[in-house]
């Protein structure tokens, strides 16, 4: 059993080591390349992309959907595990909240990158029309961003106070910052009661907000006449997909965080086992909605729907379609059935597979539909009949993903990834329980 000081010692954020510095430089390099590509896009217009009047949305939008989906992990772990009283969530919630915050912030930025006139972005407020799903998005994304931030910030207060004290001598500057951010937390009863109340409110709020966010995201597509998008199944389909993407991202993150920060004592095989079961559940729910979305419509499809389904099942997009369906859902479900499959290393591999498949899943939700309009594609350059992102699009998208990882890396550099105060409190509770028992 560790003492309080030992806990603080092992959980306090530490300076970047060599690998982390290399990782940061790598991210900054990608971000810089993407920045240059975006400046070029601003000057020359969206012409630098491979988008056209048929493939009018592409990788930017699918990446946006991916970010929105990933941001669901905050709602999923914090709210759902809290409501179901799963105590094992303690060392994982903060990482989930950090992923959520980084993802939703980047979702907001990605959608602006897709705009033809980012300079007129404020028109969405000035001339806002409430009937447009984009207006709903403009409302829900900042709301979710703020609540996600609060959900990260409120439980941090006691830890910030601990860090203020810890760094008082070794780094007065850092200590001052932590002190300011801790809002004079002393840990007295009144403060504790207030904190408890505030955390409860945001933790309850985040669940409906997360569900609304995912649903609105689905409605961006299902409010059109497009075959493959106009589906009443889309809301729950997106929610369950977000559940998968978010947990996948969480599994991969905790694996690396645990390794880099030597947190084996805190994030144990037990946690991976639990997360593995949760991920299997998420994949099964998503598989169910996939069956509803693709397999059952194949029975009674119109000619247009049939063309669309054929490109997915056997046509141009079949490789990606089967990769995301088998690789991203069926194989993970199968492997996660076994106890060995839920050990850290297999979980990392499954998690990576799930994340990559989740990203491509959004790509094949967005792209193929646009290539099958009601009218035949005629009178336009032959290249418009297909879509594959240009170098600019890849660079900008890579830099968006890198920025999300940069935000994540910086936050886990300066914040304790496992809640310190809470770990101490829970352990104290556990020991008193034991004393009472004996």
């Amino acid at each position, binding site marked *: 059993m560790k003492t309080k000081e030992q806990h603080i010692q092992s959980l306090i954020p530490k300076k970047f080591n060599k690998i982390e510095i290399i990782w940061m430089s790598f991210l900054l390099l990608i971000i810089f390349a993407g920045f240059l590509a975006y400046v070029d896009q601003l000057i020359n217009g969206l012409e630098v992309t491979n988008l056209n009047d048929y493939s009018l*949305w592409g990788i930017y939008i699918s990446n946006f959907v991916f970010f929105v989906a990933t941001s669901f992990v905050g709602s999923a772990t914090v709210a759902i595990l809290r409501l179901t009283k799963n105590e094992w969530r303690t060392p994982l919630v903060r990482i989930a909240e950090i992923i959520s915050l980084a993802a939703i912030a980047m979702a907001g930025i990605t959608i602006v990158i897709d705009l*033809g*006139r980012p300079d007129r972005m404020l028109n969405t407020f000035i001339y806002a029309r409430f009937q447009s799903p984009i207006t709903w998005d403009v409302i829900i994304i900042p709301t979710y961003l703020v609540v996600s931030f609060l959900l990260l910030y409120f439980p941090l207060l006691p830890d910030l106070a601990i860090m203020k004290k810890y760094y008082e001598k070794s780094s007065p500057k850092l200590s001052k910052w932590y002190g300011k951010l801790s809002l004079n937390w002393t840990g007295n009863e009144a403060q504790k009661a207030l904190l408890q109340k505030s955390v409860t409110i945001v933790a309850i709020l985040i669940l409906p907000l997360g569900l609304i966010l995912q649903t609105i995201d689905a409605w961006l597509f299902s409010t059109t006449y497009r075959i493959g998008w106009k589906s009443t199944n889309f809301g729950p389909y997106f929610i369950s997909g977000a559940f998968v993407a978010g947990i996948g991202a969480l599994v991969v993150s905790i694996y690396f965080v645990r390794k880099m920060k030597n947190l084996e004592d805190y994030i144990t095989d037990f946690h991976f086992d639990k997360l593995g079961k949760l991920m299997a559940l998420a994949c099964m729910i998503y598989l169910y909605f996939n069956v509803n979305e693709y397999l059952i419509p194949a029975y009674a499809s119109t000619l247009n729907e049939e063309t669309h389904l054929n490109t997915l099942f056997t046509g141009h997009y079949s490789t990606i379609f089967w990769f995301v369906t088998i690789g991203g859902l069926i194989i993970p479900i199968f492997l996660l059935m076994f106890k060995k499959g839920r050990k850290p290393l297999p979980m990392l591999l499954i998690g990576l597979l799930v994340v990559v498949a989740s990203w491509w899943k959004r790509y094949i939700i967005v792209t193929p539909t646009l290539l099958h309009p009601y009218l035949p594609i005629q009178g336009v350059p032959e290249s418009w009949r297909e879509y594959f992102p240009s170098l600019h699009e890849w660079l900008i998208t890579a830099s968006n993903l890198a920025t999300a990882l940069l935000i994540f890396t910086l936050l886990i550099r300066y914040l304790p990834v496992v809640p310190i105060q809470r770990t101490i409190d829970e352990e104290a509770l556990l020991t008193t329980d034991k004393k009472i028992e004996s």
Partner: protein
Amino acid sequence: MENKNKNSRRKFLDKGLKLGLVTAIGGIGLSKLSCKPETESDTDTGEKMELMTTDGTIIQVDASEVMDVDHHTKEDHDNHDVREGIPNRKFVMVVDLAKCKNALACQSACNKHHYVTGDNAWIKVYKMQEAQDTAPYWMPVTCQHCDQPACVTVCPVDATFKRKDGLVLIDNTRCIGCRFCMAACPYSIRVFNWSEPDQGEITLNMDMDMNDPAHAAHEVHASPEHAGVPSVKGTVDKCDFCPHAIQNNELPHCVSACPNGVFYFGDKYEDTVTNGEETLRLSKLLEDKAGYRFMDELGTKPSVYYLPPTDRLVDFEDGLENYNEFQSVEKPE
């Protein structure tokens, strides 16, 4: 005790205020209701008037029923609100598929007058064939100017809007370029300015108009009523049904350019359409030739009617000569 008194006084004030508010709103509503019948006088004068209906029969009506209709005067055309439309008009188009042989004069005229410089024309003539055994035909498609426009519903900033005269137009000074309208349009008629439009000629013309005093008074600044003048990078463009031509008592460019009289343009309220050569009753034309609207089952309620390609006046094969699968806008060499 005193506290309790205070509370009840507060409650009273609160209730009183609410009641007052309800009464005020109710009062305004009632006065509005009572205002309405005043415009239509219900006093029967007994004086009869003889009038001729659109189909030529003489009918008698009470003089009090007859009201002065604001017939579209030149003034109406000139001084209307761009977002409201030209008063008392409802523009429609009829496309006779039996006459189209893919001459593409409509497309060239449209490209020219709207300075279309991108890769995708605003009016396209599709080579259509429903099934392997059915006969192919040529089908010109413009913006359908739907009465239930899917594009307008999804626009987040009201940049694309529906007018009372039936037109769906775009304010490209407001468009944010999200392309949601393009995703929503089932007719794929919207085009995007992916790069800076290369409309060299038009900027020159606009400069000339500015210097010419005769033109200076006329509208030369950008207006949704003349799409493409100028086109703006990062915004959406499309067929506007040429309100700039209508105001000068001219037909849309595609209608007047067509050598085969495929396009009829007119006013639904007048029940009249013309292709420049013949003027017909809209209702009779649609009845005689079994007119229909394209993908009407979607519920978009288009303003464009099609006449099926029966009893063809032209050979489908003739059109193949002009058919270019990969190009709809001629590029300067």
